[in-house]
């Protein structure tokens, strides 16, 4: 029973164009969502987050959109750069005691930016 799903295992985008990574979730108790980026042999690095009280959050080239009714979020990267080539994980946190932030991760999407 996968509560967070990234249905695209891989995505290839031309440098300078927009990259759109998608994520779906099933648990309506999730109220905080994050995107992490991961390079090989390194740990995940936090990219951007969004609370369930918002529908958009922007940070430089990165924007996350949240559609609560569809239980769907997406990450937009504009413009895409070669250094953006990595695996991207969507993660969600349910409301919890003491704000423990027990993250549930998607399977990841491998993004490749082509020159």
């Amino acid at each position, binding site marked *: 029973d996968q509560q*967070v799903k*990234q249905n695209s*295992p891989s995505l290839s985008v031309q440098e300078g164009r927009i990259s759109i990574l998608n994520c779906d979730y099933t648990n309506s108790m999730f109220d*905080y969502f*994050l995107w*992490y980026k991961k390079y090989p*042999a*390194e*740990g*995940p*690095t*936090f990219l951007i*987050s969004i*609370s369930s009280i918002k529908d958009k959050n922007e940070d430089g080239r990165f924007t996350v959109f949240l559609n609560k009714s569809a239980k769907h979020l997406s990450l937009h990267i504009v413009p895409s750069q070669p250094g953006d080539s990595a695996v991207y*994980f969507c*993660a969600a*946190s349910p409301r919890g005691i*003491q*704000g*423990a*932030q*027990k*993250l*549930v*991760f*998607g*399977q*990841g999407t491998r993004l490749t930016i082509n020159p």
Partner: protein
Amino acid sequence: NAGVTQTPKFRILKIGQSMTLQCTQDMNHNYMYWYRQDPGMGLKLIYYSVGAGITDKGEVPNGYNVSRSTTEDFPLRLELAAPSQTSVYFCASRNNVGNQPQHFGDGTRLSIL
């Protein structure tokens, strides 16, 4: 600034052996976490701690134990290694103010043969 440090980076164990994966952080974070990542899958929460002396189970705790005697350290113990525990293990920590994100170490790659 070291952040979250995990040791060792790689380890091969035989079935039935035990070992401790070390995790230490120098950011004075109260919250610490252990995840495992199997090939082609997302990270799954094993155990977490909200402060020294307090630990709780995550999604996949069976076969593991943890302790949190100090704020800095959160070791993960495998008592009887099994092939199903072959995975990459990540430790993370975060500040307990608001919804601060988790900061991850670079992982320990563990193979059980």
